């Protein structure tokens, strides 16, 4: 403080003294990036198929399956909330579109649109209930999680008589919808799933919103200190409800991929995936307490998860140990992440 008292009120030349390297190091995702490199190098050494270009497509696809949902989950966590219903909501979206199209024999795009409306409503409901009751989002969305899980099974059974939605592969609009949500194309030796492309687009979009727009500033603020944000006029409720709706919209998109990839959706799917999305966001540098994090980080977190999950298979290790390996790799990635962040903070 003493220095500020005596500092001349002219332009301070210390402003520009932070090097690019130091600035990079202070980004939330840098720890996960180092973690990802460590995981990559590790599997490049122990798993020969990892070195082939063709497997890259598979790894990216596996990562995209997690990464697409990790984008809104990361934004929501930065905004200071959780959504435990995100995993089963994806299944709900797929089932809604599949069952609606089948039951009413409509063009599948109608089911797609209905599903979008339903998912927006579910997101808005989560956000509204949270704002209305003031309960922790952990509790509110845990409730939604169970409700959706039950509805998925119950409604599917009532409508289709089985535990999966009816196949819609022979219905109008299926091929065009599949082209949008679940197609693939060749890029040299690479087999690229369209989901990977969407994932990259979503990450770029999410990053832009978070870092470059007014809304992004508000997301940081409502997660960092909601009372402070409200005091300076940030519409806290609107931002938070908007974030939950975003999760709903992304769950819709993921659900459409699920549906058009297989033409049927199993109603019991998705349970437990909400934690994987949250883990991807946390590994990527999001604070569990909100107010800090990055969308790019969530993508790197998803990549670490995808590489580890498939790396164990590529390495040809005894499958009995799969989950244990997964846990160890994730812990290591997180620890590296933390260590790097500590060092960066010291600078």
């Amino acid at each position: 403080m003493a220095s500020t008292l005596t500092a001349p009120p002219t332009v301070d030349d210390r402003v520009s003294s932070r090097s690019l390297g130091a600035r990079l190091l202070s980004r939330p995702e840098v720890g996960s990036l180092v973690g990802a490199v460590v995981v990559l190098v590790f599997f490049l050494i122990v798993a020969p198929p990892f070195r082939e270009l063709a497997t890259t497509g598979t790894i990216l696809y596996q990562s995209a399956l997690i990464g697409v949902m990790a984008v809104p989950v990361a934004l929501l966590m930065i905004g200071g909330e959780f959504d435990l219903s995100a995993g089963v909501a994806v299944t709900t979206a797929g089932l809604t579109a599949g069952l609606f199209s089948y039951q009413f024999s409509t063009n599948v795009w109608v089911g797609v649109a209905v599903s979008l409306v339903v998912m927006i409503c579910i997101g808005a409901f989560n956000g509204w209930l949270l704002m209305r009751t003031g309960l922790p989002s952990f509790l509110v969305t845990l409730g939604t999680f169970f409700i959706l899980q039950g509805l998925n099974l119950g409604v599917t059974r009532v409508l289709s008589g089985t535990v999966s939605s009816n196949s819609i592969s022979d219905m109008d609009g299926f091929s065009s919808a599949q082209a949008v949500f679940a197609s693939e194309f060749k890029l040299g030796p690479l087999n690229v799933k369209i989901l990977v492309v969407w994932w990259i687009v979503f990450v770029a979009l999410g990053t832009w919103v978070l870092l470059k727009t007014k809304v992004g500033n508000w997301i940081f603020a409502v997660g960092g200190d909601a009372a402070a944000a409200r005091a300076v006029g940030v519409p806290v409720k609107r931002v938070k409800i908007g974030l939950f709706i975003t999760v709903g919209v992304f769950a819709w998109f993921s659900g459409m991929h699920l549906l058009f990839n297989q033409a049927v959706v199993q109603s019991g799917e998705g349970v437990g995936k909400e934690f994987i999305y949250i883990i991807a966001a946390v590994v990527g540098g999001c604070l569990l307490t909100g107010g800090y994090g990055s969308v790019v980080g969530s993508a790197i977190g998803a990549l670490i998860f995808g590489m580890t999950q498939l790396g164990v298979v590529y390495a040809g290790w005894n499958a009995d140990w799969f989950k244990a390996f997964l846990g160890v790799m994730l812990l290591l990635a997180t620890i590296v992440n933390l260590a790097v962040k500590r060092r960066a903070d010291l600078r």
Partner: protein
Amino acid sequence: MSTTTGFAEEATTSPTSPIVHLDDVGKSYGNVHALRGVTLAVRQGEITCVLGDNGAGKSTLIKIIAGLHEHTDGVLSVNGEERRFSSPRESLDSGIATVYQDLALAPLMSVWRNFFLGNEITKALGTMDATKMKRIAHEELTKMGISIPNLEQPVGMLSGGQRQCIAIARAIYFGAKVLILDEPTAALGVKQSGVVLKYIVKARDAGLGVVFITHNPHHAYLVGNHFVVLKLGRVSLDTHRADISLEQLTNEMAGGSELEALSHELRGVDPELVVERVEGNGQVAVESPLDKGAG
């Protein structure tokens, strides 16, 4: 502290009509009256100090002016017009900026993001003009004499005084006509308090009406033009600087007649007395006139 004495002498009391005027304002929560019959005028270029002990009603008063709570009795007028704020946004839009004890800064966000929070400068598609925002933040902070080397630094890593100053600079930049400061020096050391008081005077010099809420009469007397002391939700003193000395203000603030009675009671106590006799239950036995008084 010596560097900050004499700020108040520079002040010129302006005879303009009040920007914010409270007339017989009260607030009750059910049958609890937190605030009763408060009349207060905030004028441009003047520092109005509101003093009071904990629970005297200071924070209720701020919350009414800042739009966090609606008042239940009396009239609140801004620029001569009767108002009733139902949200902080309305209060802000009327030119009243409040700097709370907790400062309304998000600790993990950078200085420039905090500076413009809720008032971002945007280009097309809601994109923030970061370059412009950083430049303005830097200029405004420099104008206030605050030097923060790195505007990307999270606010949480700055000192308490620096954070106060950012909040004040922000309020001034965004066109506040009235600045309400809630205990800005309460959590600060002597040196940092001095810096904050300096900025309070700067805000006044910039033509703002300042409401300075504190329970420290020394700080109040250094900068204030006008003093209002609250006690148990009522105004117990309302006076101009010319009509009161620091001793009187301290006396009034510390409880006035109550303090006198207390000092009378304590007269029999020998401050140098050391009690060594400890009874079986471990309690110190001491005879004091206080016991009789309290009994």
